[in-house]
């Protein structure tokens, strides 16, 4: 069993700079949890506190229902993979992987068996005699993974392990780590600033900012039901479009931007929730894929909007259309994700269709989802 529990965990550096604020989190046994957030959000510090590399200022951390606050890293039964691999340069691959086992006084035969098995899983059996400097980035990271898995710990910790790899290798290693999780079925806590990694790998995602947890949920729930504006903007690429406007409570509930050059009827499902915001400013959010060209679909929830196309970006399987609202004083820019074969021209007026059933609304003051 390798559950991890954080209760009111706080980290304060002198003088009074709090980087993690009373974090509460329960990670179940065998779960793959990703901590994601921008630089300085406290995700790495949280991971390092779980590892025991950073002391906690207050609160409790338990691994397998045992409070580990004062237990040194070596006795927490964890393994960690670092961003810069942290392989021991003076040892070869075998010695690197066997180091932890030797320290724990395992029998030679057992060490040999475990290292060979891990090397087999990771496809590095032919590299066991090499020193780290003779390995490529991807091979080094595999060795780092191998060093972690030979120990068969209760919990694996990953601190941005793929950040130093090139794009292709990153995708490949991402899949390998997910496969590894299925193979060895151990609790994994993974820190990244890359939302694609978070979405594709985690059973659950913990979105953090400024030392606070903003949302904990499954990747799909985080994407479809963001708890607040920050989560909505951080998860998803290109990022969600935001628009400030007022809820108008006339015959038809609608949302209109300040100069009334653009308004949208509100969906049935949101009417009751939004009625209490009548006359008040709210933030509307719409994901780029929920803005369509007419060719894509014709549905009753689609509302047409006239736009000026500013930039087109074709990325092969899709195209990003950057536009502004026509006849609007607003300087805001928006983006839509459309099929790559859509015939569009920069500078020309065009009509796009917003799917009003997919709108998100956020309280302007608290930025919480409505």
């Amino acid at each position: 069993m390798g559950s991890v529990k954080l209760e009111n965990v706080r980290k304060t550096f002198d003088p009074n700079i709090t980087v993690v604020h009373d974090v509460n989190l329960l990670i179940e046994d065998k779960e793959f949890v990703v901590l994601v957030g921008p630089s300085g959000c406290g995700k790495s510090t949280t991971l390092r506190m779980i590892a025991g590399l950073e002391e906690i200022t207050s609160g409790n951390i338990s691994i397998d229902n045992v409070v580990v606050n004062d237990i040194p890293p070596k006795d927490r039964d964890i393994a960690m993979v670092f961003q810069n691999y942290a392989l021991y340069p003076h040892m070869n691959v075998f010695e690197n992987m066997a180091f932890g086992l030797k320290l724990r006084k395992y029998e030679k035969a057992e060490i040999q068996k475990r290292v060979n098995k891990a090397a087999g899983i990771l496809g590095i059996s032919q590299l066991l005699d090499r020193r780290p400097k003779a390995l490529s980035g991807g091979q080094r990271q595999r060795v780092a993974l191998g060093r972690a898995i030979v120990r068969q710990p209760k919990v694996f910790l990953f601190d941005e392990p793929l950040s130093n790899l090139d794009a292709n290798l990153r995708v490949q290693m991402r899949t390998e780590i997910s496969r590894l999780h299925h193979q060895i079925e151990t609790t994994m806590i993974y820190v990244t600033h890359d939302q694609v990694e978070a979405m594709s790998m985690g059973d659950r995602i913990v979105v953090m900012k400024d030392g606070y947890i903003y949302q904990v949920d499954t990747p799909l729930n985080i994407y479809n039901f963001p708890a607040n504006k920050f989560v909505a903007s951080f998860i998803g690429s290109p990022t969600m479009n935001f628009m400030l406007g007022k809820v108008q409570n006339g015959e038809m509930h609608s949302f209109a931007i300040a100069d009334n050059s653009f308004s949208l009827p509100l969906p049935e499902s949101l009417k009751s929730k939004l009625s209490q915001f009548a006359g008040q400013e709210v933030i509307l959010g719409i994901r780029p894929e929920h803005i369509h060209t007419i060719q894509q679909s014709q549905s009753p929830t689609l509302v047409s909007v006239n736009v000026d196309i500013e930039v087109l970006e074709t990325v092969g399987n899709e195209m990003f259309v950057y536009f502004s609202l026509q006849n609007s004083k607003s300087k805001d820019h928006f983006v839509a994700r459309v099929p790559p074969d859509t015939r569009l021209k920069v500078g020309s007026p065009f009509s796009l269709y917003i799917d009003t059933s997919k709108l998100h609304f956020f309280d302007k003051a608290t930025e919480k989802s409505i």
Partner: protein
Amino acid sequence: MKRFKLKNKLARFATHAILILFTIIAVYPVLQVVTISLRQADRLLSTSLEIIPDNATLNAYVELFTNRPFLLWTANSAFVSFVVTLTGVVLASMAGYAFSRFNFLGKKFGLLSLLVTQMFPATMLLLPLYIMMIYLGLINTYIGIIVVYSATALPFCVWTMKGYYDTIPFSLEEAARIDGCNQFQAFYKIILPLAAPALVITGLFSFMAAWSEYIVAAQVLQDTKLWTLPLGLKSFESNMTTEWGLYGAASFIVMIPVVALFLLLSRWLVSGLTLGSVKG
């Protein structure tokens, strides 16, 4: 194009000429020591510039090893230098680690104090050191000389080690601590082997500080049985005459271990001096 080539050749010639000139200036006196050691006793003050003199003889070397306590002085020097080197390496490797990795009260002050001790000339410290040695009863003992040598070599060694540790990523120790090391094991199993180039510099510096030191030794070691090589060498010079042949021979032999060590460790020295200057 032709003019450019000619200019290039001239520049290269000038560079080499200057280099050769300075090499001669640096090496010739050393060769002259060898020459003097090989001369016949009646030609010691010859002004000839030849390197291997006419009728060269090894008499000075034979005399040195048979009729003088040269081997005893060498053994004494070797012992003192070895202990000073060991003390320097052990203490500096640990002190440098503490200065590099831990935050503690007085860290900055400590580092700065170590640096300040290097600003004073050795002769200025001679009197206070001598008085301290008398009070501590360390005059005429190896412990006395070893303490002084270690104390003078340590500041440089600590700074060197600290600077080198600073270039070793923290994550290596962290990985080791997670793998099962305590702080000290992480230090000696992971960090120390990686700091080998700095250890070599530290060792060499400590060794040289002890091997060729004269002034302090002359104050502390008064019993001829305890003399180190520099004191022994000085004894060839008396009020009336100086035994230049013996002086030359002994000087040449004293040089050998230092040169040999340099050659042996040069690989480490070069990598030690360049490593860490670029983050790799």
